[in-house]
């Protein structure tokens, strides 16, 4: 049976599937939150959702509209202060997965959410800034990045490193003493990129159903390498789509 679905739905389902049951997941708002809540309603009922507003183990019955939505506090195992969430929970490496997006990501998984173009004091576009991302990127055991691909957003080198991926390549994280592994997967509307084991350069490893290597290459601002054993994502199952759409309808 073939179902109709959008590339955003595929991206969300792909992100949700990346979350193992029982994992402790530091969730940002938007697509990461949708994906985490989808995972909790499908294959990962014991996924632990942690939001930077201080809610540990939130179990929202609808999609939260912000990282500080009241439904998160109401359903959390514990609500703690913002200094505590960063110091006692994120910083020591207790969180398995950090979920990030951004305006730009580069071929080494560095993320920019600060400024685009010009220079820092006189940028072409002023973005919101860092938020929790630099320390999420540093301290979570693994990082997942979720972003739509385009040559403007998937760039050779980000204009500003707000959150470190692999820096200038393999070994940078270790040299800087970062404990987390860094971005293990970039989930896009066209497929999935993973760091090359030898170079840490993001490489296309899976295509989304219906996408092509050419589309992905065109949507990358660098000469995107393609894995020798390129796979294809399984399309969303009927259940995944149904749950996802029901979730979106709660907003």
């Amino acid at each position: 049976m073939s179902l109709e679905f959008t590339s955003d739905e595929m991206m969300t389902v792909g992100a949700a599937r990346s979350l193992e049951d029982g994992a402790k997941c530091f969730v940002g708002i938007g697509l990461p939150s949708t994906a985490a809540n989808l995972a909790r309603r499908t294959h990962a009922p014991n996924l632990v959702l942690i939001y930077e507003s201080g809610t540990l183990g939130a179990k929202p019955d609808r999609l939260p509209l912000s990282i500080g939505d009241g439904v998160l506090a109401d359903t959390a195992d514990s609500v703690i202060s913002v200094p505590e969430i960063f110091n006692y929970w994120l910083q020591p490496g207790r969180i398995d997965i950090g979920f990030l997006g951004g305006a730009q990501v580069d071929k080494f998984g560095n993320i920019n959410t600060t400024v685009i173009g010009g220079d820092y004091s006189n940028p072409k576009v002023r973005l919101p800034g860092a938020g929790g991302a630099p320390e999420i990127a540093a301290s979570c055991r693994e990082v997942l990045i979720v972003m739509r691909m385009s040559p403007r957003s998937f760039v050779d080198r980000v204009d500003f490193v707000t959150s470190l991926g692999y820096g200038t390549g393999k070994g940078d994280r270790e040299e800087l003493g970062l404990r987390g592994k860094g971005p293990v997967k970039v989930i896009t509307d066209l497929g999935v990129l993973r760091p090359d084991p030898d170079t840490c350069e993001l490489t296309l490893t899976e295509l989304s159903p219906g996408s092509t290597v050419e589309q992905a290459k065109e949507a990358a601002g660098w000469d995107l390498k393609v894995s020798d054993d390129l796979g294809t994502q399984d399309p969303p199952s009927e259940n995944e789509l149904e749950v996802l759409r029901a979730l979106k309808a709660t907003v």
Partner: protein
Amino acid sequence: MARILSLREAVAELVHDGDTVALEGFTHLIPVAAGHEIIRQGRKDLTLIRMTPDIVYDQMIGAGCARKLIFSWGGNPGVGSLHRFRDAIQNSWPVPLEIEEHSHAGMANRYAAGASGLPFAVLRGYTGTDLPAQTETIKPIECPFTGERLTAVPAVNPDVGIIHAQRADRAGNVQMWGITGVQKETVLASARSLATVEEIVDELEPVPGAVVLPQWAVTAVAEVPRGAHPSYAQGYYERDNSYYQEWDPIGRDRERFEQWLATEVRGAERSAR
């Protein structure tokens, strides 16, 4: 020892031109009415601190209250950019705006250091990012036991810290619950503090998860029902999501913004009680 004042009196007394002022509230319990009162009283040259400057800071910046912003994430959550903030940075309108940019972890620790009477805090933060090159208040520090290199950030100690809470009693003890963010630290780090509250009650009934600030740790309390609108106050009202949406076109346009200021803030009397 907290004095119960009207919002107007409290702002007039506590917030002066040129002060460093922090309005905190992490998505929840944002002291919006207090921000509007600061605009109404025409304060200027403020150094504004806030982890997540959103609509109320966009409004204060657009109204010309600020000369500097210290922050870690500035945006209209779920909607987009802060256009008054951008206009100030990029075009110095209505006045130039200097920025000092951190991460949430850094800002949270700066408040915690401020609350602790320490000149700085230590964290694992900013490593490998471009932030330290732009922000003078991020420096390396070495562990005297292991030699490991970490990051130091200086304490923030605002002249005035402003928060919104659910309740206070008549002695000025302040109680808040739900997501309480960095508000305790903000009050404790500040030389003077103001808590606006939904209501003043005879007795603070204990609530699970509540944070209580004793009256002797708060300078003034003002009763301001719906003082966190359009954000929310758990147990009182929900977030007004459409307000956030509607802010976008207003904030985009200087004229619409000026009109909004004139009718909704300067011409309004939200602080009457």
